[in-house]
């Protein structure tokens, strides 16, 4: 074992850019990486370069007709009406030059992270360029072209034959990954997200339990809009402890979308940095309890790229490396560099002051409703099916 943890990165991640106005912006990854470097917690020898996923690997999950369509779009040869069937050329996933290559590197980054951990080169690995959980078998959706998480889990099943626990804490339902393994009892998918009643994609109900052999291995916690730290963490911590004890995974894959924060412009949850300290802490603990530490973490959503995502994602690495999140002040050098570009005031501390959370009039109702969802969804861990 050379490192406790590996950080997958290359500038190629930045090529995944739909257009200047698009909210999905991989500059987040650079900002998180530099925040770690300025904090002296990430060194050069811990960084590994992503490989490019091959078409054979993409086809572990995606339809070859879809891959062909993405390649055509990549060269600007896909007609507008041809793209509709594949979700390409929409406002959410516009086509852009070399999109196939850019998306393949994100998937490859996740595969690199998987191999590093499962070959025993490091205990944990982080690919912040990945976590594109909305991609479907033959359709791009919700800013996602190829679904690296789904490809990676297929890859783990095929190459290593391990039982995978997938934990998705993005504010949007992890639908693409859920449907990919809906009938597979060796892959347990868990998604905590804002209810789809208002938010994209709309699915992720408690009653989505899996089908056939996979029945009982899909868990959804659709929490209410305006949920705050305390209730979020109550759901997350109870859910993960209980599901891990029930499923007993060999390896854990987490999707760490950072869009449940009250600053996030696309969602309506009201969390602070507190959840982004506790989410990786528990994933780390569970990985050591059940999987000999085998934990791969991915990025995902996160649309306040200035005040939220860099800190939230840097904390995953901090926990991987030292078992603890960072505290105190954000390095001055990092603030100086990025404040020049930021349209908002960058936060000076790792944690958030609770005063940033707006006053939510129905807090106790929201908490109660979330508790009911928790109890309902966890019914299936009691059955020993």
């Amino acid at each position, binding site marked *: 074992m050379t490192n406790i943890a590996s950080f997958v990165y290359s500038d190629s991640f930045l090529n995944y850019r739909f257009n200047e106005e698009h*909210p999905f912006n991989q500059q987040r990854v650079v900002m998180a990486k530099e925040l770690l470097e300025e904090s002296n917690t990430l060194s050069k020898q811990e960084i590994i370069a992503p490989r490019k996923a091959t078409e054979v690997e993409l086809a572990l999950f995606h339809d070859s007709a879809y891959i062909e369509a993405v390649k055509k779009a990549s060269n600007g040869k896909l007609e507008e009406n041809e793209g509709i069937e594949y979700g390409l050329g929409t406002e959410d996933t516009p086509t852009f030059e070399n999109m196939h290559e850019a998306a393949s590197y994100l998937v490859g980054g996740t595969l690199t992270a998987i191999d590093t951990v499962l070959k025993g080169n490091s205990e944990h690995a982080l690919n912040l360029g990945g976590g594109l959980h909305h991609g479907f078998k033959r359709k791009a959706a919700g800013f996602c072209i190829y679904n690296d998480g789904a490809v990676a889990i297929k890859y783990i099943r095929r190459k290593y034959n391990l039982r995978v626990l997938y934990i998705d804490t993005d504010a949007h339902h992890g639908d693409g990954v859920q449907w990919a393994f809906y009938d597979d009892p060796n892959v347990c998918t868990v998604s905590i997200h804002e209810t789809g009643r*208002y938010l994209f994609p709309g*699915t992720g109900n408690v009653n989505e339990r899996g089908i056939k052999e996979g029945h009982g291995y899909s868990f959804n916690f659709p929490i209410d809009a305006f949920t705050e730290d305390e209730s979020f963490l109550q759901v997350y911590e109870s859910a993960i402890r209980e599901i891990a004890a029930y499923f007993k995974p060999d390896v854990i894959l987490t999707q760490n979308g950072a869009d449940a924060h009250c600053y996030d412009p696309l969602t309506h949850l009201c969390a602070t940095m507190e959840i982004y300290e506790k989410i990786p802490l528990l994933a780390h603990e569970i990985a050591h309890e059940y999987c000999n530490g085998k934990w791969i973490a991915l990025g995902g959503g996160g649309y306040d790229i200035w005040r939220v995502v860099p800190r939230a994602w840097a904390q995953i690495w901090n926990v991987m490396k030292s078992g603890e999140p960072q505290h105190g002040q954000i390095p001055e050098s990092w603030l100086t560099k990025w404040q020049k570009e930021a349209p908002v005031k960058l936060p000076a501390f790792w944690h958030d002051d609770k005063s940033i959370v707006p006053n939510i009039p129905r807090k106790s109702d929201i908490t109660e409703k979330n508790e009911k969802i928790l109890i309902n969804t966890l019914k299936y861990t009691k059955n020993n099916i």
Partner: protein
Amino acid sequence: MLVEEIMKTDVITLPPTATIYEALQLLQKHRIRHIPIVDEEQHIIGIVSDRDVRDASPSSFIKNSDHSELQNKIRSIMTHPVVTIHPLDFVEEIARIFYDEEFACLPVVRDNKLTGIVTEKDMLYKLIQLTGTHVQSSHIEVKVPHKPGILPEVASVFGKRKTNIVSVLVYPYNDDPSYKILVFRIQTMNPLPIVQDLRDAGYELMWPNNIPEPKL
């Protein structure tokens, strides 16, 4: 929407001479709650529900029952005549029958023959589809004055942003007849530009809104 678009056509039936026991088996095996009783020509002569069968079964408190009651013919407990519907009936109208008559199931008859069945559950499923949450989409609610031409006005905002509408519902606004609530599910993960357009055009949004109260 017509009944023929939502009815199930593979209907589980029994002849009038079948036993109650057979009905019980079918209800359990297929997880259904109603069985139309038909003759050889597929004419409906009655219907039994799971409640009819349960009423005819011995109480679970009675030990050592020989269950001989279940050997009675199904015709002895079936309900008849049966309220039936036609494939070309409107779904909205049969919803009225469900509500008024408190049935949970209506056989569909064409040419005097059983051709399908619609249950309350099928209706509810259709309602889920009408609200659009089965397709990846985001939710927008706009409060608008109740006046001609308002719907296309609002909808053009989505068109300009090349965003597909998955479903549209029009609700009353509390008890105020001068307003309506338009509920859209639109096929995008990023409704922000549209929300901005709607606000710029002066529409009042019920969702997304700024529910949080001002700080004390």
